[in-house]
């Protein structure tokens, strides 16, 4: 076995033989509660983005229906026959 290989094996053994902590019984529950909070925050953010998009679309529709920019500028100066 080469030297680097032996070092790697020793480190692996050192890590594997180190004391394993006791898993707290409520680990999954704590993670699930935090995960639910994360999901709620994500959903709220998504709802906010949709609300902004909807607001902008409605605003644009109202503005277009009032201004009707496609109708062209109204004729303001009378045509004069010289």
């Amino acid at each position: 076995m080469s030297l680097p290989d032996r070092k790697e094996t020793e480190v692996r053994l050192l890590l594997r033989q180190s004391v394993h902590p006791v898993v707290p019984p409520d680990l999954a529950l704590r993670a699930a509660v935090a995960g639910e909070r994360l999901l709620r925050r994500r959903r709220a953010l998504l709802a906010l983005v949709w609300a902004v998009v909807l607001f902008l679309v409605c605003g644009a529709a109202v503005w277009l229906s009032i201004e009707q920019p496609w109708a062209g500028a109204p004729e303001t100066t009378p045509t004069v026959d010289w």
Partner: protein
Amino acid sequence: MSRGRRRQAQRHAREFDAFVAGAGGRLLHAAVLLTGEPPARAPAAERLLVSALARTYADWARLRGDDPYEHTRQELAARFARQRRRHRRAEGGVLSRLPPQERLVVVLRHGEGVAEEQAAAGLGLPPERVRALCERGMAAALSRPRDPVGDAA
């Protein structure tokens, strides 16, 4: 929430519970090695793992074929890398003499058996840097005195 969605959420919660029951021990061991706390009392490692697992819980529906263990480990490593300044001073465990980044690389490569390229990609580091950190970390870990303090707990 519609009935179908609620049933799906319940199924995901059950799957998540089963996943944590199976993988929690190994993940917590990795987290404790990272934070360098004495294994008997490791609040920072628990916090780190809970927040990584919370991400996995929230992403559960989107995981599809992905391995939740790998997803959690990646999140754990990324989180630790972001807050490594906080973990500069380790209080126990076999890697307590190593700086946080060396601890991270040694745990990923030899505790978890992650390939060098994969570890480098996950941490956003060049592979050569990962190799150098790993070499230095291994040398420091093996040169430590054989009378471990945190290990005796």
